[in-house]
């Protein structure tokens, strides 16, 4: 993997590169390079499988981070290629020529984040939100509670409990003695 990264580094400049696990790497590239680097990874380095694509809204930085999650069946390594794009000019190249199935992710991101993918097939069709008229809901400047209170009729008398405290109080008086399930690392 290190060799691959080195080979990539020979070709383009990589901003950040992190290793999360033995089989999970991330690195960030420029927006203009994404087309080249993805096709290079697919054709030359056997990252043939696009597992998924996702977006994160960094409201504070004024950026969207798009992640292309690739997988290599030969060496069994996940590789996330991050790219940061400007929040004001939310537009990205469509990758459907490399992986035809990516149109569905792009359509989803287009609907939920409002990132445009010119040329991607059926990108303007609604995905889960039928007839949505507000700003895309996954942008962090959209206040869902306010929207929900405004739109859906709240039933009065609703109260919220912390389940742990509530259960401790109501059901398991001697909570401290009960064995907890320990998750193996």
């Amino acid at each position, binding site marked *: 993997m290190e060799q691959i990264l080195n080979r990539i580094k020979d070709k383009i400049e990589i901003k950040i590169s992190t290793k999360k696990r033995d089989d999970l790497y991330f690195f960030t590239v420029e927006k203009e390079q994404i087309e080249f680097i993805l096709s290079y990874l697919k054709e030359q380095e056997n990252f043939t499988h696009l597992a998924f694509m996702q977006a994160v809204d960094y409201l504070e930085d004024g950026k969207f981070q798009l992640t292309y999650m690739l997988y290599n069946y030969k060496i069994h390594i996940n590789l996330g290629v991050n790219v940061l794009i400007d929040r004001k000019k939310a537009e990205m190249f469509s990758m459907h020529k490399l992986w035809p199935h990516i149109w569905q992710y792009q359509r989803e991101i287009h609907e939920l984040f409002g990132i445009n993918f010119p040329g991607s097939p059926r990108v303007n069709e*609604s995905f*889960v*939100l*039928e*007839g*949505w*008229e*507000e700003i895309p*809901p996954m942008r962090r400047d*959209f206040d*869902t*509670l306010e*929207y*929900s*209170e405004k*739109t*859906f*009729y*709240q*039933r009065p*008398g*609703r109260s919220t409990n912390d389940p742990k405290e509530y259960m401790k109080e109501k059901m398991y008086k001697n909570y401290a003695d009960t064995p907890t399930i320990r998750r193996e690392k």
Partner: protein
Amino acid sequence: MKKKDINEIEKQMKLANEGLPEKERALFSDARPSSVAPLNKYLEGFLNWARSRSMWMLAFGTGCGATELRPLMTSRFDMSRFGIAPRPTPRQAAIFVVGGYASIKTIKRIVRSYEEMQGPKYVIALGSCTINGGMYYDSYYTINRLDYYIPVDIYIAGCMPRPEALIAGFNRLKEKIRAGECEGMNKYTDNFDWYKKNQKQIIKDWNMPDYNW
């Protein structure tokens, strides 16, 4: 009555179906549903007895609660001994089990299926989400109160309710039917415009007739 008046009344009885494109208007019925009064006490009582013994429910998993419906059919819980049977089509079903949270996209289908069922029809709403939104109370796309959109006969609280709770719910519904208290369908038709207003308020791309016969 003059013929003109009759035409006028007939026109009022029709639905506008404004959500449909022009060429599709003829493909959907535009009749307005009307409520049907129950028969006399004994006859209706007899029928209610049969309805309560033969509860055909719509096998349509609208939410995560639908996972709790499956065990109901298995040998352990065996709903068929109560005369509950799943029907694959709304035309034949009498009970609509709304399985938990309903997003706007789902509520559209719920309304459609509910209207396609032939009355008398009953609705069982599962889980907190249908009562007050449950854990999705602040979601931008999930409704909080189901009874604003279709009439609900029985709520079964829980997140999610267990099959035992469901059986209890069904039995409660059975009693209500026997008592003749379940007139949800008439309620719906009597308050048709109110329900439609609520539905149309959240369903923005209304591309179906106003009443799905």
